[in-house]
């Protein structure tokens, strides 16, 4: 079996979520590499798309931010922020968009906090804020969320809800004015893959990474989580790893 790092495994697991033809809204870091990898593996017709307005960039080097000049090279269109978010809010194109994002906290319904810990006006910890995350989570057909699997990050109640997941359960998005058939699809952590029950909209454990027990994952989740159907996640193949190391991030800027 191939040797691989945890970050490589997470990247490949995320890449497998991307379907051919998806328009992939990417953030910085590991999500960008996952989208690059998916294009080389199973989704050659997927499109990488940045909130900054760059559509189908030719990524010869890994960008360090969504505004990196590397995203501006050889695109289909270099649009504005207004164009980028309109593409996601648009009732025709928005359905094709899958968003990849991360956060500081997540709750059982996949709602995200990337703003503050503590009181909003007097925060104990201040984070970057929404950026485009709230927009993406409000608009697009499905989102894939990266998280560190820690009890303090998987919480029953968020300190601040920056980006809407399934809000407080079935039908809640529709009641708020968002689309009921769009929302978070998967949570990819450093231990596991979580999904959302189609009836209750609550998070459950779908897959454990090789060598990590269900018990350990449950222990690191700050709310009750159904682990009864969990199976082991397939590790990355030699071919997948070669693509990551040779074609996506040869300098090891993100995965190194």
């Amino acid at each position, binding site marked *: 079996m191939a040797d691989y790092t945890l970050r490589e495994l997470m990247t490949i697991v995320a890449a497998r979520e991307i379907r051919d033809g998806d328009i992939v809204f990417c953030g*910085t*870091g590991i999500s960008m590499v996952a989208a690059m990898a998916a294009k080389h593996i199973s989704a050659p017709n997927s499109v990488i798309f940045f*909130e*900054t*307005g*760059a559509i189908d960039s030719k990524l*010869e*080097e890994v*960008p*360090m*931010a*969504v*505004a*990196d*000049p*590397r*995203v*501006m*090279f050889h695109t289909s269109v*270099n*649009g*504005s*922020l*207004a164009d980028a*978010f309109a593409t996601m*809010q648009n*009732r025709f194109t928005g359905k094709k968009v899958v968003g990849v994002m991360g956060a500081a906290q997540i709750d059982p319904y996949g*709602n995200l906090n990337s*703003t*503050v810990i503590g009181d*909003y006006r007097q*925060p*104990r*910890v*201040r*984070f*970057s*804020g*929404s*950026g*485009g*995350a*709230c*927009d993406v989570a*409000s*608009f697009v057909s499905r989102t894939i969320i990266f998280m560190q699997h820690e009890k303090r990050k998987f919480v029953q109640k968020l300190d*601040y*809800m*920056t*980006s*809407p997941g399934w*809000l407080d359960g079935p039908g*809640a*998005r529709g009641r*708020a*004015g*968002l689309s009921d058939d769009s929302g978070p699809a998967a949570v990819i952590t450093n231990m596991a893959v979580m999904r959302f029950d189609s009836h209750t909209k609550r998070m459950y454990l779908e897959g454990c990474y090789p060598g990590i027990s269900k018990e350990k994952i449950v222990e690191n989740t700050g709310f009750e989580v159904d682990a009864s159907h969990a199976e082991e996640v397939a590790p990355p193949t030699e071919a997948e790893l070669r693509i990551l190391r040779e074609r996506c991030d040869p*300098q090891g*800027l*993100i995965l190194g």
Partner: protein
Amino acid sequence: MKSEKIMDLSEAIRRFVKPGDHISIGGFTLNRNPMAAVYEIIRQGIDGLHLYAHSNGQGVDELIGAGCVSRLEIAYGGTGRFAPTCIRFKKAAQEGLLAVEDYSNYQMTLRFMAGAMGVPFLPTRSGLGTDLIEKWGFSPETRAADPRLPNDKLKVMDNPFGNWGDVPRVVLVPAINPDVTIIHVQKSGPKGTSRIEGLPFSDVEQAKSARHLIVTCEKIVETDDLRDAPESNQIPFFCVDAVVEAPHGAYPTACYRHYDYDPVYLNDYRKYASDDALYADYLQRFIRGVKDHAGLIGLIGQERIKAIAADPRTGYATGLDRK
């Protein structure tokens, strides 16, 4: 080339940026922030600014770090991998030195667009059901005391056209009309017609929403050079109050087809920004201790400036060591 709008940066800042002004700056995280202007504001010690930004990283963090900003409306304070959360911004927010009002990127963009269009608000679906709507950073008293601020942060409204468009409800975002916007572009003409290469971000909306507009540019070119390809120009001359030639004016952030961001500067900045004493030294040595932006570029030295020069094919510094 002659024009009453062409002036040096210190004059442009002195004329159009006053203490307590509502100001917005262009660019995005580590790209095309108007850094020469940001540093000049710091040098002139202009404070009490009310700053509007969507995802401006470096420029916002340095204005906050130097004590120029008292209130901030923002979507994202980060500089990509160099600072996932801007360090001086984080510190100021945690220590209660800065009042922050959070929006999303699209909300901020629409707010500038509304200002540019001359309407009081625009609708979107972004943020329904979230704390962006529920939780306010500015107190009602703060809002009431400044006529340049609306009384409400955001409003939710049922679709007045019924369920037309299959949308039952929208969020209304209030227009922004800054006293002054500053953007950095690749080329401007003597009267202000301007051309942005690469991604424009929300610079055009920010520029057109403002009472006054300062454009800094890599190069002031002949009007005919721009009018030969008018479809590539974004800012019409009559929107512009000051045209400033500022080579490397976005440094240490990037300027497409001219230079990349400087990873050395951004990594060093992270170290300085993480420590109050080091940060004071940084401000003294690199910003206040030099006469102008050319002085900073001179301090950085030709070797590093050459390393970030853009490759003509890709528009960035191919193979640059960015660790």
